[in-house]
């Protein structure tokens, strides 16, 4: 008996294809679905954000939330440590100082510090007085200030802050020492509201240094001491991640991507409109631009020239520029390096800088040539007429190099890879300096390595963006070029310059100071330790209708300043 053969299968190829065909259909439709879904979701989310442009911007305009985007989030928030430019913008809002600068409208439509005649007014303090020889200072505190942790302000907080600075290496220590407070004997607590500073010498810059947040951002000692240990008596570990200040804002959240701030209800000195601040860390400049265009954030400071251009035509956004911090981008020469020892070589380098090319390409025409050792002419005493290096003169550069016998010298130009302008400027410098007979190598280093080399003072030619807290010619010049200064990164050592710098630092009479400044500048241009490639304005972009932008020397945006007409 034969059974019927089993059902004959379709041709082998068909059966396989058939199976796959069904699978294919299922899979392809799911693929279409997924891709389509992603697109739709992206769009939905995108619309959400764009509506937020009206919504987000509207929310901020009417009310109480402000968004600011910056390239980075600080790694730590200890008020004495400068760990990046982001920390300035944040700690200024969290840690208030006893005094701050007076601001007036100098004609640009918003208040600015008058850097030709800077004055301070009390902030956390009620008054700051001095003896006529500027040696003895007396600070009287207000009695209505409460920290974000609920503790009232007393002189113990001030003393603790200063003691911290004396003990912990950092920017704060430099400021405090510059202010003449070099040891405990320069600090004397009188009572709960009065504290005196008997300095070793008269210091005309004391009040201006006292507005510096690194040196004198007052820490809530009561709170800090709770977190101190034997090995860490100043609560360094805790303060690296936690705030305890008397300023208008306190830290509500601190993650690697964003920080959120809330109003310090104990701060009664102004009535800030914005109760919540969202600070976003966005490393890509294009993304930051996008955020302000859509209205997700309302304030951006770090903008590249290309982006400023893109924003100029945007009538939702206002671009505010100020030069009170004397911003300039400088090229510095390490005078100890053999190839750079001869001043003629450095002068040649200065003559060969392709200023116009740099201004056109790197700054898109928004910067100007340098005028003084500071960069621009903003600070009193800086005199552009003394500057012989105007324009470019490659021929003169070549002559000088030949005169110095430096043809074919190897010059290393080092730049910080995290800085876009340093790299671009470096590229231009390299080709221009090669043209006049040198052999230039351009080296990019990571920020940490750059910092090490700066400290080791072994970068032959390097760049730094300048911006100053204290608008004083001699403060800046001493910091940079006094041979005794620990932060003299060019190793500049000129006896005559030292003499003039010391004299000018302590000279109380402004006119006499101007005279000394002029003499110093002459020496400077002869022995040229540095050259500014470009002088630019510091521009902040703010969405309308927010007002209140103020030009502070540290480039700060104090959130308490800002407000908007309710819509």
């Amino acid at each position, binding site marked *: 008996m034969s059974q019927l053969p089993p059902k004959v299968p379709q041709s*082998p190829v068909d059966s396989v294809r058939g199976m796959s065909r069904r699978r294919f259909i299922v899979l392809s439709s799911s693929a279409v679905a997924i891709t389509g879904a992603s697109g739709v*979701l*992206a769009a939905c989310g995108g619309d959400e954000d764009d509506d937020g442009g009206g919504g987000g911007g509207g929310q901020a305009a009417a009310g109480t939330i402000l968004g600011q985007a910056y390239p980075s989030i600080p790694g730590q928030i200890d008020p004495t440590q*400068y760990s990046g430019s982001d920390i300035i913008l944040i700690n200024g809002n969290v840690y208030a100082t006893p005094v701050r600068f007076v601001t007036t409208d100098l004609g640009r439509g918003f208040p600015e510090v008058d850097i030709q005649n800077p004055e301070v007014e009390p902030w956390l303090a009620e008054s700051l007085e001095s003896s006529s020889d500027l040696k003895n200072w007396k600070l009287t505190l207000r009695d209505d200030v409460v920290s974000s942790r609920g503790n009232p302000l007393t002189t113990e907080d001030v003393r603790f802050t200063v003691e911290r600075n004396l003990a912990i290496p950092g920017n704060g220590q430099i400021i405090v020492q510059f202010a003449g407070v070099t040891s405990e004997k320069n600090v004397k607590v009188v009572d709960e509201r009065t504290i005196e500073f008997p300095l070793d010498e008269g210091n005309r810059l004391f009040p201006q240094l006292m507005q510096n947040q690194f040196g004198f951002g007052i820490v809530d000692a009561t709170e800090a001491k709770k977190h101190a240990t034997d090995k860490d008596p100043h609560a360094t570990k805790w303060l690296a991640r936690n705030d305890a200040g008397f300023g208008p804002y306190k830290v509500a959240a601190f993650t690697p*991507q964003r920080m959120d701030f809330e109003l310090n209800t104990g701060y009664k000195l102004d009535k800030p409109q914005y109760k919540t601040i969202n600070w976003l860390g966005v*490393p890509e400049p294009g993304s930051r631009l996008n955020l302000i265009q859509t209205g997700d954030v309302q304030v951006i400071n770090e903008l590249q020239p290309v982006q400023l251009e893109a924003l100029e035509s945007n009538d939702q956004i206002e671009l505010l520029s100020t030069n009170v911090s004397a911003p300039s981008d400088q090229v510095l020469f390490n005078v100890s390096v053999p190839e750079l020892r001869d001043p003629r070589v450095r002068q040649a380098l200065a003559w060969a800088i392709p200023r116009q090319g740099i201004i056109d390409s790197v700054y898109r025409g928004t910067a100007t040539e340098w005028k003084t050792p500071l960069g621009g002419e903003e600070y009193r005493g800086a005199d552009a007429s003394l500057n012989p290096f105007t324009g470019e003169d490659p021929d003169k550069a070549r002559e000088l190099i030949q005169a110095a016998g430096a043809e074919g010298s190897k010059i290393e130009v080092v730049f910080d890879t995290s800085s876009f302008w340093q790299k671009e400027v470096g590229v231009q410098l390299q080709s221009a300096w090669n043209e006049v007979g040198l052999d230039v190598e351009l080296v990019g280093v990571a920020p*940490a*390595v750059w910092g090490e080399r700066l*400290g080791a003072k072994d970068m032959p030619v390097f760049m730094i963006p300048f911006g100053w807290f204290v608008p004083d010619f001699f403060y800046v010049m001493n*910091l940079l070029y006094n041979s005794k200064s620990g932060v003299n990164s060019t190793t500049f050592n000129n006896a005559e310059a030292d003499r003039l710098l010391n004299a000018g630092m302590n000279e109380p009479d402004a006119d006499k100071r101007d005279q000394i400044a002029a003499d110093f500048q002459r020496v400077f241009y002869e022995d040229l330790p540095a050259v500014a490639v470009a002088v630019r304005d510091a521009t902040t972009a703010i969405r309308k209708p927010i007002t209140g932008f103020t030009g502070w020397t540290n480039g700060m945006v104090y959130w308490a300043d800002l407000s908007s007409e309710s819509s």
Partner: protein
Amino acid sequence: MSRGRFAIRRMATFPVQILGVVTLIFFVVHVLPGSPVFKQLGLFYTPEQVDAATEQLGLDRPLLEQYGDFLSDLVRADLGTSFVTSKPVTEDLLDVFPATLELAIASLLIALVLGGIFGIVSGMKARGPVAGSATAYRLVAGAVPEFWLGLILVYVFVTELGIAPGPTGQLASDLPPPPRVTGMIVVDSAIAGDWPAFRSALAHLALPALALGFSIGGPIARLLRILVADSRHSDYAQYGRMAGLRRRTLVGYGVRSAIVPLTTLLAVLTVIVMSQSVAVEIVFAWGGLGQYTVAAVQSSDYAAIQGVVLATTTFVLFVYLVTDLIQATLDPRLVDARPSGPGGAGRVRRVLARPSQGAGPPPQSAAVVSRAQESR
């Protein structure tokens, strides 16, 4: 060897491998130029401040002493403190790892779909326009740098069309993040029922996942093409058809034989995606492990670098461990894994071993695969 013994042996090598890698990295890392001290001190400081800070951070002690401390901390799950973020590295890793994981999972899903379709199609039909586009996809997918693709997507969908959110991380900036459960915002917002955040998170995930998934789909397509073509033409399939086996049985055999290489491939790809996401994370400011790694390396952040290598290597080795165990369960023959034969095995191995930005398959898995192929 029994499966049990195999499993135990395999699991025992795991910690040894990790220790080896970590030690290697510790010593390498401490040779890196650039002291993390300077990130703290900022622009202007004195040599005395530098010395003081170095001492404070413990960087001036002899290397072996630092290594000893490192090991003893490791046992207590203390990876040190990051100089960049001032937080414990463990905390940092817990912060950033889920973000990368979220991106990796989404990319793999997209890759599976894209690679699946194109691979199966080109396996089915050797010629024709459909197969041609599949070939083109395979080619382009493997050749495209993901970070560049991400930029192109940003240009098209954000700048020009304006329909996607800007490349600013995982969530719209004015939305508060949902309460943290897994650290993956899409999941957390779903758990919390926070639908605006959910939509926003998905929208932000779309472009980076597409950028990554597009290129990861390449190897998947390649493998599936081979597997499908092989199974069509293999002896057993033809014989089976000849003998009148039902379609479903054949499919079953085909699927069973595909699982092992597919599992290995997925393991490899998971690993690849975890590290290849670095550049994409930078483009989209994702805030994941990749971004953290780059920042750590550039700042000579010793503790963070060690932590990152430990975390990713542990993850890699864990994935392979699980894969080996799964495969051993599925096919006991694989327990006696030995180096492969030529030809087919080698082919699959090469397809699998795309070590461009990740680790290649370890000998165990590769041998497993080749052994599986050999026995066809």
